[in-house]
């Protein structure tokens, strides 16, 4: 009964490929996020969706396209992968009203070779 689950946990792929990471939350939250953790462990928000609508896009390249089929799912598709995309990607969710804590998934370690 994992609250926020991501698949896959590890992803190794070649430059130029297209890949997707899936995220699902069973907390009934309205808002979902993608955060990127770089090699220095720095965490930064990429996207936020509220009830399937994009509300934050933090100057992420167009190669990254989030998709939210319903408010419990937020998938991340990455086109034309580059070496610099190697990172750990975390999905998270939170309630919408005011500021509440975010619940994070286990992360997906993406390695582009």
């Amino acid at each position: 009964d994992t609250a926020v689950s991501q698949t896959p946990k590890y992803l190794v792929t070649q430059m130029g490929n297209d890949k997707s990471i899936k995220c699902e939350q069973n907390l009934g939250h309205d808002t979902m996020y993608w955060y990127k953790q770089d090699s220095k462990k720095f965490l930064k928000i990429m996207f936020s969706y509220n009830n399937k609508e994009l509300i934050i896009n933090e100057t992420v390249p167009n190669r990254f396209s989030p998709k939210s089929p319903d408010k419990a799912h937020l998938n991340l598709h990455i086109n034309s992968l580059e070496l610099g995309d190697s990172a750990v990607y975390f999905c998270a969710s939170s309630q919408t009203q005011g500021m509440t804590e975010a619940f994070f998934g286990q992360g997906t370690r993406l390695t582009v070779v």
Partner: protein
Amino acid sequence: AQSVTQPDIHITVSEGASLELRCNYSYGATPYLFWYVQSPGQGLQLLLKYFSGDTLVQGIKGFEAEFKRSQSSFNLRKPSVHWSDAAEYFCAVGVVSGFQKLVFGTGTRLLVSP
């Protein structure tokens, strides 16, 4: 712009000793403050949060943090560290401006020596 500073990249503490991890934030409004822990290969787990009220907040695993507005700080403390506390600790400020997001510090890696 909002920012969070964790001045210590690494800290080593003996098992059983006390711990304090520093966090300073920059935010124009009332801050919402969080501490998360990331164990090796794991996701982020919320330790505690401060929204308002009592400036000393208690969290899980015996951790506590104190909000000091005058110092723009939210330091994390534990009176007696256990080997299982070895992990990466992240301080974050919650930003609400029509939407909400977390702005994280760069993290502090805690090493626990026997």
